[in-house]
């Protein structure tokens, strides 16, 4: 394998307390090492910034909902073709790119690891097939479990709490699918949506037909994931997304999970004051205050960016609301036993009160928080905007003058209802950007070899020219090194790499199959024995991250 010495760059490696120190970074056999031989390739990084490869903790890049969105939005990609070359496959871009385009463009942006945040376990083969066609990046996916009827039965049988059977079932499901972690989306609410367009509105509403409540689902599955010691804690899309006043639900959800590790997805969409049906306002400061006192909880922001987006969510009731706001296109996709899905193409407009407020709340979450290790960068791609907008978002955080210029163009009535006009002069440092875009996501995912540049880390490295225009700087890295090989140089892809599948594994009693099989038989239209994915062509090459049971 190639040996590389990245020489003379300003290294930002916050996981190892390195903040802009000029030093060499040496790579060999796919890992960061102390030193390399004299024949190693030397990359002159003087005047440049060196960080670990980016890690996206929450995006939607593969699986049936993403593919349905592609089919729904052909016109959004026609002006953004990607030509084939001797090295690369062709594709199409836009807000929901084709698989090859997704991998290439993440790589060109300096990202080397991405998490697909919401996969129906029943569709694991589809998700894995798409991820196989998403090159250049290592990738993981989270399996949807918050509306799983079989788990509801186990929770009900245990009196509403965690149980050994539930823990075994969750571990079995990860083993059966190749999933990395557990995602809860509007627990209980999606099941109610699929019944008759219903929903749950509080954590204590009963899920009709199952005698469980969202609170019990949160406690039981959150507790089980915690007990199993999965590398990534339960990943929560809380109830009442997008509804004015939902900050109460979010805080209630955080309190319910109190004492357990948990990650809250796209917190911006759950940080609203006001009353249902009325105008929202910001309650980001309250959520940040809670986070400040509860280090066991982390979040990604789900920043809204003005421009095109495609909303896609297992929380299908939310999509129906957007449909009724006049959306031209709408997809609803119900998956038996497990989940739902809604898709609506969307555009966030700076002049729109709600959109500007959402934009402002996202910035508040970034700028008012005191601990960047707790609040990570995401746009909930493509829900709040494309991952390609990350460089602009970084500039908004690092460049106060730019931010104020953008603020001036947004709906002022909305912006006045945030803290952004209160002399908020914070500008993120490069180290803080390194925290929210790689170090913190990797740590929260339990990926010990990623997100940092210490000896033994994966040789995933991004080298940026240190430009005053931070958007330009982060949009066009000079070098991206993946697995110890130069993947991007001078803004062009130099090689194609399949990337690894990242899966997690926890021990479970194989006899749990005897419990699950009859529950499957009553509900699924797929035979229990045929449900698990065993095909090596789909499951490999992979890196398995073992759980550390508590």
């Amino acid at each position: 394998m190639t040996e590389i010495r990245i020489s003379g760059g300003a290294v930002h490696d916050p996981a190892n307390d390195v903040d802009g120190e000029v030093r060499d970074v040496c790579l060999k056999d796919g890992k960061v090492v102390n030193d390399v031989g004299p024949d190693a390739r030397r990359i002159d990084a003087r005047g440049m910034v060196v960080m670990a490869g980016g890690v996206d903790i929450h995006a939607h890049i593969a699986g049936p909902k993403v593919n349905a969105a592609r089919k729904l939005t052909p016109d959004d990609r026609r002006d953004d073709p990607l030509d084939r070359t001797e090295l690369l496959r062709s594709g199409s871009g836009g807000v929901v790119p084709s698989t090859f385009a997704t991998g290439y463009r993440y790589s060109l942006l300096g990202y080397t690891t991405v998490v697909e945040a919401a996969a129906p376990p029943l569709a694991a083969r589809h998700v894995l097939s798409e991820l196989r066609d998403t090159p250049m990046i290592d990738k993981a996916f989270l399996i949807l479990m918050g509306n799983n009827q079989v788990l509801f039965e186990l929770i009900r049988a245990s009196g509403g709490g965690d149980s050994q059977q539930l823990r075994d079932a969750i571990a079995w499901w990860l083993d059966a699918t190749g999933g990395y972690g557990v995602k809860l989306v509007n627990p209980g609410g999606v099941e109610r949506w699929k019944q008759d367009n219903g929903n749950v509105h509080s954590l204590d509403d009963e899920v009709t037909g199952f005698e469980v409540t969202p609170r019990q689902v949160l406690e039981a599955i959150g507790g089980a994931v915690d007990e199993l010691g999965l590398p990534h804690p339960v990943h929560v899309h809380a109830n009442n997304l997008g509804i004015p006043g939902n900050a109460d639900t979010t805080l209630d959800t955080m309190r319910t999970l109190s004492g357990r590790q948990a990650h809250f997805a796209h917190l911006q969409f759950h940080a609203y004051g006001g009353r249902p049906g009325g105008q929202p306002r910001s309650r980001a400061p309250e959520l940040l205050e809670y986070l400040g006192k509860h280090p066991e909880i982390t979040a990604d922001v789900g920043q809204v960016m003005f421009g095109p987006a495609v909303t896609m969510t297992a929380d299908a009731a939310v999509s129906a609301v957007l449909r009724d706001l006049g959306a031209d296109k709408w997809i609803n996709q119900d998956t038996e036993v497990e989940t739902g899905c809604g898709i609506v193409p969307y555009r966030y407009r700076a002049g729109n009160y709600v959109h500007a407020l959402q934009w402002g709340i996202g910035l508040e979450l970034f700028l008012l928080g005191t601990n960047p290790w707790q609040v990570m960068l995401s746009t909930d791609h493509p829900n709040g905007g494309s991952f390609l907008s990350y460089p602009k978002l970084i500039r908004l955080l690092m460049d106060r003058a730019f931010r104020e210029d953008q603020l001036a163009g947004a709906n002022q009535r909305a912006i006045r209802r945030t803290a952004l006009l209160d002399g908020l002069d914070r500008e993120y440092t490069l180290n803080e950007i390194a925290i929210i875009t790689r170090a913190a996501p990797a740590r929260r995912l339990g990926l010990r070899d990623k997100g940092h540049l210490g000896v033994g880390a994966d040789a995933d490295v991004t080298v940026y020219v240190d430009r005053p225009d931070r958007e330009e700087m982060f949009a066009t890295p000079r070098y991206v090194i993946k697995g110890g090989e130069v993947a991007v140089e001078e803004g062009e892809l130099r090689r194609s790499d399949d990337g690894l599948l990242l899966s997690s594994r926890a021990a479970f009693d194989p006899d749990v199959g005897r419990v699950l099989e009859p529950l499957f038989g009553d509900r699924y239209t797929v035979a229990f024995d045929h449900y698990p994915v065993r095909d090596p062509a789909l499951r490999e090459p992979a890196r398995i991250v073992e759980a550390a049971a508590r």
Partner: protein
Amino acid sequence: MAELGPFTCAGCGLLCDDVTVDDSGDSVRLAPACDLGSEWFAERRRLSAGAPAATISGEPADVESALARAAELLRGSRRPLMQGFANATVEDARAAVALADRLGALVSIRSPADAWPGAPAVPLRGASTATLGEIRDRSQVVVIWREDPETTHPRLLERLGFGDGSRSERTLAVIDNRDTATTARAGLHLSWPPARDLDALVTLHVLQRGRPAHAGDLSGLMDRISAVPHAAFVYGPGLIGGAGGQRRALALHELVRGLCHDRHVVTLELLPAPGTRSADDVLAWQSGYGTHVDFAGGHPEPVTATAPLDDVDVTLLVESAPDGAAEIALHGLPGGPDVEVWIRTAAAGVSAGGTAHRLDGVPLTLQAPQPDDAPTAAALLTRLLAEIGT
């Protein structure tokens, strides 16, 4: 051969995965019983025994020679077309689209006999869909619109909960002016000619919005739907095929969208072939577009208008019966005199494994209860890509 299974039957898009096969006697029998599946399995077995590995201009040839001739044809082609995918797996489609990308080919996820281009309606407005289990467990009214699944997808009704002993409070409504095996199962049978379908869909939409309409027999159907919290429409080429199909598909999805304001309503499309869904999904994720895609410009472009088929000079049929003219065919069925190169493939689900997407999108593994030495289409296409790439 003794009883085998349970395995996944790829005889139709339902991909029933609870099937056992017994061909110890004179004929193949499947359990649960399915004539279509038995016929499909028996045919694949029969063809895999004694058929040549390949033909060139109708004469038996070895696979290497046939591959070389196929590569020669494709290299010399100015306008290659890849078509078919009736029995394709996900792996076949991935390899085919990779080759099409390299060749700058036109790809169509349809059999040659299907209408061209048949622009889909979903990209215009979307759709509400569900997997089989959702419809079985929740839909109290299921409307089958001008399809005869009892013939084309023999276990569909059973899998939607209308088998023996099904709940009597559910309504199976069938719209068809033919007397079919499916209309015989209907609790509500409505009959009008196909030419009235668009008008019927529009009228139902008017009724849904609570406006007066000369509805006739449609009122009864709307009353049944309006009385339940969950309903489903099952449709396919009978409604959306042929001239005006896109308008009828749009009208159906508009109707469902309207109905969804007050209740949960979903659709299920009966696709023309078992491999259609797999291939369409692969084409969409690799290119960004479904159904018909042109790679001639060096990147994918969706084909939505009348296709530029006139200048196609080489057609490569992927896992579709070569029942017409084609330069190259990769399939289990032998090519006829109009096929320049035919290479016998292992039938996915009988003699080769693979992954397939059920008509509702659920991905499943196909097993190989009777493996043989024939290559898969995926393997052949990958070889062709390597040949042409050098």
